């Protein structure tokens, strides 16, 4: 520890601390622009100059390491003179267009100018003007306002992993810009808006729509990926205007993915459903709630009476709240129907009944940062879990070995130690190789099927990496969870974890992937799971928050099942185009912003939130709708007065911070079969981030991003040749009874025989499952 005195106050700080660290420890504010706690030190703004005893000139507090016995004055005459001098320089070329600047009211330059700026400028010359840059649909630029602090440059390089911005030119002509003709396409790009201390980078969707002081700041939780980033939702006149991160070092740190940040636009979408609707004689008519709910109650009771309760089925979204999922399953169980599921994209349910708890991350999110060996199996990591990918990126920079096993080789913008890429059907085989290799090294016994595999050098490398772990972990990504042999993959990963001493967990696919298990939104003993409900069509379906043709593992089957059903009730915030076709009743329910509820994130953390705005039009929170449906169907146990009452049924009166006792990745015995490839073409499907749920699909700015490009057909050169297709050509793909017309693209990162076609897009909704055989014909 080092002794330091700041403004006469003595304290001790750790070796390697800078003056600004020490000042923060003391609660002393030193003005600064370029310094940011999560970024490297640039020391370029010079605003944090302070007086250091015995130093001949003022020193930048952000970059000056504390030495023992150092005495610092942050507000002495020398320090303030230096700070004021820098402020004058910062302002001479700044346009001072605060009245028309979006940053006004939340601008660091504006705030500090009050304390350190002069009332009039001594600069009488012409000011600099910098041409604006097009950084894409999310970030607006007013580069004349830029003070060249390079926070955005350092962010893209250090946090997002790819230098998409840089400072070009010299001196006064220096400009921050992207590479020529390119935009900033990172899935974390919106963070540069928060980082920009001035109004140079502002939010394109939000700009010019409100002043910061007109906005109410309300806490909420992101309904998208399994991380459950805490949000500050800013509202005005009962409308969500903007979303910002709520800092939580254990979850999102101070970042947000673009999906979390910009999906709010969908809340104000013209596609919002604002009144209940019934299909009457093939025509949709708007009705009163009472009428709609009576209709649903009667229809479901009729089906239960005439065909048995098992003729019903409920497909709930993993993006729904814990309360909604609980009441959804309670309603079905009240009708004596066990056909409930929220795992819509899952295709292998063989572990049902063998799980000892909700599958989860296997550790706290923050613990990822202290891992030294990681294996990620089956994950489009960067797009599925932007902030977990960021944590892995940071540990890989610090020397941790991150290895990947997957069916598509994509640049995760992190230092990958080893990777093994194979067809989806070969992933179990690949993982078995790593298991075998580790078992040999540890002298552990393995099944004959595992012992039979031939170990490749990549698998060997991955095994050796895991064996050398002090804090190792194996994660199964979305792709592995959606895999046709998900149970085998899990069993192998579990075994590998046991052998190597690594921890094991799942990267939660959706905001309530854990919550669904906790709420028991799952089929009971006799119940059908999501796939079975669609494979053996029911008479009546209840769909909550999902778009069946986009959110189910097999859209073809889903559409067929729903179209034949007598009654399909869809509860959604949106007038879903698919539902207009197959549904009979549309009930407008609140999105996350208009209801209270809870999400249980991938680490098992319960995050409850309140509504931030009033429900739009006749929209009602889904938990209330389900509760009233329970009443109308005269089911017992539907007398909750608040979402807290509902939550209490699931989690008890005092909701715990973590549902630790409900979590477990342990499973019963699984027969491991490792099969060779059949040689058929196999589909590899990702769920693109900006098509992952109903909300992001309707966020216009996200839909303009590069990541929202319509699906294409990707193959490597050899596969293209085999199919007689050339890059750029239009091709017809066939899967089951459905086809899709797509453009062929060359993707060297795919294994031979793999055909990558993204899921969750209307253009490919005619195709069948996310895996399995597919045929390709050139047009």
């Amino acid at each position, binding site marked *: 520890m080092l002794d330091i005195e700041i403004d006469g106050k003595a304290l001790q700080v750790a070796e390697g601390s800078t003056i600004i660290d020490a000042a923060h420890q003391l609660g002393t504010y030193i003005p600064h622009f370029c310094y940011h706690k999560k970024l490297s*030190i*640039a*020391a*370029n*703004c*010079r*605003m944090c*100059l302070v007086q250091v005893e015995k130093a*001949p*000139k*003022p020193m*930048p507090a952000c*970059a000056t*390491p504390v030495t023992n016995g150092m005495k610092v004055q942050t507000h002495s005459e020398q320090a303030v003179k*230096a700070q004021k*001098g*820098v402020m*004058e*320089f*910062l302002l*001479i*070329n700044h346009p001072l267009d605060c009245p028309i600047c979006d940053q006004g009211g939340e601008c660091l330059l504006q705030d500090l100018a009050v304390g350190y700026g002069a009332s009039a400028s*001594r*600069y009488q*010359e*012409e000011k*600099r003007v910098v041409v604006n840059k097009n950084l894409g649909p999310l970030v607006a630029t007013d580069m004349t306002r830029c*003070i*060249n602090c390079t926070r955005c440059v350092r962010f893209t390089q250090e946090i997002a992993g790819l230098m998409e911005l*840089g*400072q070009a*030119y*010299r*001196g*006064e*002509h*220096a400009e921050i810009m992207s590479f020529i003709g390119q935009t900033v396409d990172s899935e974390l790009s919106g963070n540069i808006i928060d980082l920009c201390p001035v109004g140079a980078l502002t939010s394109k969707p939000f700009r010019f729509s409100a002043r910061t002081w007109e906005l109410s700041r309300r806490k909420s939780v992101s309904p998208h990926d399994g991380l459950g980033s805490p949000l500050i939702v800013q509202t005005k006149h009962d409308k969500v205007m903007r979303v910002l991160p709520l800092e939580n070092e254990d979850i999102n740190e101070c970042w947000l993915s673009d999906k979390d940040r910009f999906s709010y636009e969908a809340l104000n979408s013209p596609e919002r459903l604002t009144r209940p609707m019934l299909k009457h004689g093939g025509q949709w008519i708007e009705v009163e709630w009472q009428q709609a709910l009576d209709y649903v109650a009667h229809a479901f009771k009729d089906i239960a009476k005439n065909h048995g309760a098992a003729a019903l089925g409920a497909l709930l979204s993993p993006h729904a709240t814990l309360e909604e999922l609980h009441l959804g399953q309670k309603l079905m169980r009240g009708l004596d129907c066990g056909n409930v599921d929220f795992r819509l994209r899952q295709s292998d349910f063989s572990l049902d009944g063998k799980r000892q708890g909700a599958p989860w991350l296997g550790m706290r999110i923050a613990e990822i940062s202290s891992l030294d060996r990681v294996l990620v199996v089956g994950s489009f990591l960067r797009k599925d879990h932007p902030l977990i990918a960021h944590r892995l990126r940071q540990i890989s920079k610090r020397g941790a070995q991150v290895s990947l096993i997957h069916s598509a080789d994509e640049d995760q913008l992190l230092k990958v130690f080893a990777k093994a890429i194979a067809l989806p059907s070969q992933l179990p085989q690949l993982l078995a190789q790593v298991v075998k290799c580790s078992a040999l090294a540890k002298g552990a016994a393995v099944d004959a099927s595992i012992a039979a595999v031939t170990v490749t050098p990549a698998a060997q490398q991955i095994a050796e990496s895991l064996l050398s772990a002090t804090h190792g972990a194996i994660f199964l990504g979305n792709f592995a969870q959606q895999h046709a042999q998900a149970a085998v993959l899990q069993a192998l990963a579990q075994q590998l974890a046991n052998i190597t001493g690594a921890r094991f967990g799942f990267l939660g696919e959706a905001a309530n992937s854990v919550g669904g298990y906790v709420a028991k939104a799952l089929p009971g003993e006799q119940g059908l799971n999501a796939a079975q409900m669609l494979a053996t069509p029911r008479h009546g379906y209840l769909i909550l928050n999902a778009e069946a043709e986009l959110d189910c593992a097999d859209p073809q089957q889903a559409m067929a099942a729903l179209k034949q059903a007598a009654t399909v009730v869809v509860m959604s915030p949106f007038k879903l185009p698919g539902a207009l076709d197959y549904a009979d009743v549309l009930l407008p329910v609140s999105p996350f912003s208009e209801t209270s509820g809870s999400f249980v994130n991938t680490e098992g953390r319960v995050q409850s939130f309140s509504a931030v705005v009033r429900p739009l039009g006749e929209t009602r929170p889904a938990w209330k709708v389900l509760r009233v449906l329970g009443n109308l169907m005269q089911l017992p146990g539907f007398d909750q007065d608040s979402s807290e009452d509902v939550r209490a049924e699931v989690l008890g009166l005092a909701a715990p911070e973590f549902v630790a006792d409900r979590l477990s990745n342990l499973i019963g015995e699984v027969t491991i079969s490792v099969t060779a490839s059949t040689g058929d073409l196999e589909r590899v499907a990702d769920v693109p981030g900006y098509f992952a749920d109903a909300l992001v699909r309707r966020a216009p700015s996200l839909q303009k991003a590069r990541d929202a490009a319509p699906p294409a057909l990707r193959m490597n050169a050899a596969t293209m040749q085999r199919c007689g297709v050339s890059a750029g050509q239009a091709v017809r793909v066939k899967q089951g009874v459905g086809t899709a017309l797509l453009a062929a693209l060359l993707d060297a990162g795919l294994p031979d025989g793999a055909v990558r076609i993204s899921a969750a897009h209307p253009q490919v909704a005619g195709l069948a499952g996310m895996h399995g055989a597919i045929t390709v014909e050139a047009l």
Partner: protein
Amino acid sequence: MSVQPILTAGIDPATADATWHLDDYVRRGGYAALRKILAENITPEAVINEVKKSSLRGRGGAGFPSGLKWSFMPRVYAGAKYLCCNSDEGEPGTFKDRDLLRYNPHQVIEGMAIAAYAMGTERGYNYIHGEVWELYSRFEEALAEARAAGLIGQNILGSAFSFELFAHHGYGAYICGEETALLDSIEGKKGQPRYKPPFPASFGLYGKPTTINNTETFAAVPWIIINGGEKYLELGKANNGGTKLFSVSGHVVRPGNYEVPMGLPFAELLKMAGGMRGGRKLKACIPGGSSAPVLPAEIVMDCTMDYDSIAKAGSMLGSGAVIVMDESTCMVRALERLSYFYFEESCGQCTPCREGTGWLYRVVHRIEHGQGRQDDLDLLNSVTDNIMGRTICALGDAASLPVRSFIKHFKSEFEYHIEHKKCLVPPEVQREGSKIYVRPSQC
């Protein structure tokens, strides 16, 4: 005072362009120092001690004692250490390294090899100014000769000592002459100075311990090894060892490079350059490159050409670029040109320099063009106050020192300009003096 050349010994200006090859250099006694070290197994410590004794000071401008700098390199270090030669000669008025590399490149190579030996580095780079391409290609040729002769590369002259040296050319940014910007530039980044600490000796090229010296510094090393540090020191004066190349330019009869012992009176140097052109009176001199404060005739004529004397007079020996101005010079116009240079060459990284150099230039430009205001001189001084000592590197100071010194020593000219909207030096005198047309409207 007798003049014994070291750096330019044995080179005849008439044939210099043809006698730069390895065999010519060897004929002049070249590579004897390197051979001596390797043959006699002189220890690295002894080499550094010899350089310390010589009082050789960095010839790039800062004048930091070279032996001391070399001793900062960690002796025992697992991993690569680097040696860099700063041939990014960008300081206006300076053209000495150009001639060294052009006429005697092997001397620099030998100096670097000795330095590498002394510091235990196995890899070096010579960063050559981008606007003198022919020097870069010549240095590559010289390197090829040295490599072929086993003077560079693995197991030099059969010893255990290995040193690979590469030429690297810049693209002409002045800032890349700042040693840490030079390192960034070699790394393939935009050349911008780094904040120090950490210093290059602990965190340099690619984050490894690195020493950077000027071309002329390296060129002086072989002689020191052969003749001993004391001898070198004796050539100059105490604390200012050896000889130095001065690039004399401006209003003298014979502008050019002059190698003279440290401590030579300025008047002598001026005489060597043929005295003032057209017999005019000396008005001012910038003794150490454009960043050094200007000295008026009466002060500079009393100086001797060494670090201490020039510093005492209020300027810097810098890179040894002596810019001589006669009475036909308009000091406002001269400053305007200098300020424009720094405005254009600021790297733009840190605020005071990025914003301040443009401000300085615009105000000086305004004064020169008859738009000056009464409080402009105070403003200029105040702006330089806010730049100096507040920046990451020395460019902020370099841009400020000329402004302050010009105003300090030639205040009346500036005041005349502001008051009368024209030059104190009549346009016809300026025209006659510079032989460059000066628009009457500008004066």
